């Protein structure tokens, strides 16, 4: 089963993303979406397993999405995990920063469920499946 970590401080956006990804699967296996309501919660969840994709908001209090992205890139275990950013940022600055830091994609809010799904699936299938199943 492909596992997605969703990091977003807005409860409603989390519900929206969860809804958009429900029923989506890679091959025959459905997606498992685990939610974190802050950067800290994400740091707690990250070590608990392997992740096939991290979707994170950029503007969050305390640890922001760019910091989380940078942490993942430096992490021994998760450096190969693709990170997809989401933000409503008006200027393109944070997008450029994110891509420079190694994000695989950037979704501008508002996005449609299809956009999110397409983007997520693209990175899920592209990700090399390095971890052992079990």
């Amino acid at each position, binding site marked *: 089963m492909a596992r997605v970590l969703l990091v977003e*401080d*807005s*409860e*409603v*956006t989390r*519900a*929206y993303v969860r*809804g*958009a990804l*429900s*029923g989506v699967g890679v091959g025959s296996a459905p997606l498992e979406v685990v939610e974190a*309501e*802050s*950067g*800290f*919660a994400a*740091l*707690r969840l990250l*070590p608990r397993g392997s992740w096939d994709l991290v979707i994170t908001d*950029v*503007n969050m*209090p*305390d*640890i*922001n999405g*760019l*910091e*989380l*992205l*940078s*942490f993942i890139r*430096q*992490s021994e275990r998760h450096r190969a995990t693709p990170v997809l950013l989401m933000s*409503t*940022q*008006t*200027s393109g*600055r*944070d997008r450029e*920063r994110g891509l*420079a*830091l190694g994000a695989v994609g950037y979704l501008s*809010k*508002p*996005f449609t*469920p*299809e956009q999110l799904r397409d983007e997520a699936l693209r990175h899920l299938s592209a990700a090399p499946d390095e971890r052992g199943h079990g």
Partner: protein
Amino acid sequence: MVDPGDRAREEFFTEAQEIVETFSRNLLSLDATLKVGGDDPALVNEAFRAVHTLKGLAGLFGAAQLGLLSHRLEDLLDALRLGRMPLSPAVLDILFGSVDVYAQILDAERNALDPPAQAVDELCRRLDALGGASAEQPSLVVEYDLDPGMLAVLTEYEEHRLRTNIENGRGLYRLRVQFDLSTIDRALEEIKERAKRHGEIITYLPTGESASPDTIELDLLMASRDDLATLIGTLGADNVVIEEVPRRRRPSLAAGTVPPPDPAGTLLSLAPPGARLEPATSDDVLAVEPARSIKAVTQTVRVDIKKLDHLMNIIGELGIVRGVLARLSERARSDGQRQLATEILRLHRSFDRRLGDLRDAVLEVRMVPLGQVFDRLARVVRQISRDVGKDIRLVITGAETEIDKLIVEELSDPLMHMIRNAIDHGIEAAAVREKAGKPPAGTIALNAYQKGNHVMIEIEDDGAGIDEDALVEKAIALGRISRVDAGDLARHDLLGLIFMPGISTRDVAGDLSGRGVGMDVVKTNMAKIGGVIDVHSERGIGTKMTITLPITLAIVNALLVRAAGQVFALAVSHVSEAIVFDRRGLRTVEGREVVSLRGQTLPVCRLAEHLGLPEGQGPAPRRFVVVMALGARRLGLVVDAVLGQEDIVIKPLGPSLSDVRGLSGATELGDQRVALVLDSASLLEDVLSATDTGPLEVAPRG
């Protein structure tokens, strides 16, 4: 799943509503900060985040007007937080205006009505009129030897904060902290709490290196005007290592690419006068409520109040079961089965105790702080005082006092009218005040506190007070009272005249601003939620209105009485005592029956007669007077018997009876009888305000 379902939509409204409320609170705090000449970047950023989230929500749920408005406000707030535009009272006015437009939009969306496009257009025009923000700031002055890895992960806002702090001559520090992953939230809150006295934490970067898998290392970038030794003294610990970020050797000025690090000079070139996010108050910057805590998300549940009503009804029905148990025990005892009777009685007691706990727990869930409605009032005060050109200081105490959610919902309109009246007609113009030796700014105090089973709300102004003479003249002119009666009215009753229909405080104050709201409407609305208003006023000193409210409407501890062979229930909270009725002590004063109670005169009302019911058959050897007290008013209710107390859930009467005055509903008692519930407020009102002594008609209200 393409369309988010109804449930998600419902969540959308609730969240949007909450965000708008937070936004409004931020604006009020900003307004207060601005008034003392300060500035608060954290508040501006919170306001930005609020509209930013609203915009995101609007996009997700296809709420076009919500999206449009949020988008425009986001631009404005972005310019404010990044220091491209100064925060002025005019800008705040627009922002405050947007709160109302948001409310209209959400209301329209919720009820599937046309969105208020006109209001949105109007607000957008006002935004246009503000003009654009000043030019983008030059890129960050990298005069500190900051880790490029850290610079790369700053969001635009964080970068702006960093720049502002540098420009204001603050030192930069790196706090390397090690935390246990499981307790990181608490540990972080602690460090934030201590750090905010010294400056601002700009960002939190996980370093990716940690001693063990259960711990995490973070680099906190902090700006402070204090020196390293001070910071180490207050923030340093085994797991917190503080280093000063060294200043770089200044790059060659001749190159001309880097502005000189002269704080004042740099700032002047960056922003228009007044634009500077003055750090004078920014020691308190982080003292504001931290952005929505993680805990709030994980540890709270939103519940539809109807579900709580349903729970309450079940509890009410369990009360009937409890009554049945008590009677079963009695029956067993009278049948000679003592053992069984005792066991049932024990069961009854245990059931009774747990049911009481359950009831209290459910009631507690329904409680919300009055602060919710006070926040809205603070906005209104600000708006009206600007509209009428009076400087008003609003002092709120007891915002944490809790009351039933349903009561809070119904409170805001009557309270708003009362505050309006206080500003319009109570508080005098500055010149008049100064002549009277008062400070030019008027004060309105909004106090709340709990008193037994009641919540008291006081609205007190230091204005001109109510002109009783004008009030009496007006009442006479309207034919509400005769001149003779007026002469007999006590001071307290005189002030009560403001609650008569047709009398507006406008007439009394002789002010024609046209906002006078009939206090009779306010009183009626308060009575609907069991509230009673008492007025005290001193000419030249001010007016104080005290509202007495029940804590909840959901469940009532009732006194059961019998009159005309029927059982009636009466809220115990409105009863001070019950005494034996002594016919010999009955006197008639001013056409009203009264008895003497400990030297004081107590007006009495015969319940059966009042309701137009025939007196019970046969001579009633002993009757009782139930003394009702609501606010400052008292009334003795003459009944045939006092039957005891019971917790009741009040159910509404059917549509044909719902307008009958004097009754607030019906309830099923423990013995499965149905009793009518007396509405204490309207009963007192009708009896005490009646100037004639005839029985009051029980008739539909006009």
